[in-house]
């Protein structure tokens, strides 16, 4: 018995006496590294499919059943605790702990937000440790306009880029690149102008805490 164990673990044996690999040992070779894979996914990057229309037209822009796959960065949120306005983030739903939402951060603690209809007050100051989140499609979104500012502790990860479909692969549009859109009539240019309009509209509804 001991001899067999020693044989198994002795490093410098010739390759010919290796025990033949059974199917079980081949599966085990992959399962064995499971903890590393899970931890890397938990603390660094992971892929998720996005379902639902609340982030149209940024994510899932057409009404087909196809779902976008995006890359999410958990390191920025969990370890660095770094998030800002305009970031697209995933968060645990405050109403149902089993659901995860994908929304855009509109305002940070201390900011004054002009709310949209379902919310009962016209303006609200975001309290400490909370953020105001909204979907890009205001009519199909369960967001802060319904349940108010949410705790920043619920934020789980930040979206880095869309992976699938490949036609829209890439980083979400940045406000700086949007400003430089040329005034053409190509659909992509019109889409970019609309995106910039939405960006300006979001900006107009927030008074940043540093500004007052």
């Amino acid at each position: 018995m001991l001899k067999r164990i020693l044989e198994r673990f002795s490093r410098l044996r010739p390759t010919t006496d290796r025990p033949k690999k059974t199917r079980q040992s081949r599966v085990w070779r992959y399962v064995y590294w499971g903890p590393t894979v899970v931890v890397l996914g938990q603390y660094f990057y992971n892929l998720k499919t996005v379902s639902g229309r609340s982030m149209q037209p940024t994510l899932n822009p057409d009404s087909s059943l196809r779902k976008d796959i995006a890359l999410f960065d958990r390191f920025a949120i969990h370890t660095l605790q770094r998030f800002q306005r305009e970031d697209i983030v995933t968060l645990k739903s405050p109403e149902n702990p089993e659901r995860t939402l994908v929304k855009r951060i509109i305002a940070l603690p201390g900011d004054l937000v002009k709310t949209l209809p379902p919310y009962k007050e016209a303006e609200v100051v975001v309290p400490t440790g909370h953020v105001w989140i909204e979907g890009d499609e205001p009519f199909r979104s369960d967001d802060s306009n319904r349940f108010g500012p949410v705790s920043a502790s619920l934020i789980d990860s930040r979206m880095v880029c869309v992976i699938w479909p490949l036609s829209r692969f890439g980083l979400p549009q940045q406000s700086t690149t949007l400003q430089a859109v040329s005034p053409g009539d190509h659909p992509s240019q019109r889409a970019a102008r609309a995106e910039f309009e939405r960006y300006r509209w979001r900006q107009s509804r927030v008074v940043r805490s540093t500004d007052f």
Partner: protein
Amino acid sequence: MAAGDMVRSRAFVWMLERLVRLREPGAAKQAARNVALRSFKVFNFFCAIHLFTDYVGRASTMEGPSMLPTLANEGEIVIEDRLTYRLWPNSFTRGDLVILKSPIDSNRVICKRIIGLPGDTICVDPTGEKAPSTEHVVIPKGHIWISGDNSAYSRDSREYGPVPMALVRGRLYARVWPPSTATIFRSNARRLE
């Protein structure tokens, strides 16, 4: 130890043998691969431990006055149970001691007692210190009302309102240190008619 003893010692001979073997063709490369593989395995082992403490349970220390007299200010070790709420998300009970991420500071982890569940009507602060004692709230869906046992030194739902259940990490299962006060915590809520 004399130098001769060292040279003759088994460990030294073993090491020398291994060094000599390294000069065989391809052996140095193989040794480097083994070192790399072994360090990956050590990393993997720590990852496995981490996942266990994250998903099943762990021992942890507690500090802070907010749960006096149930938990002391410092120096106690408790066992956290992270599995129950994961497996049965509806098993929240009034009176449970829960561990959750602070809703106002995501760096902090706090321990409080569940006072109210979704749908309950709660008097915000019966003493009238932090809110008028007539103020009542109905706890919304997916939220709980939490409170420290030492209400004079506790920041809890009286200040920040109902807390989303998604912030809860686990419940406190038992206290194991100091041994004289070791207990298994059970929900001690009584229904008054």
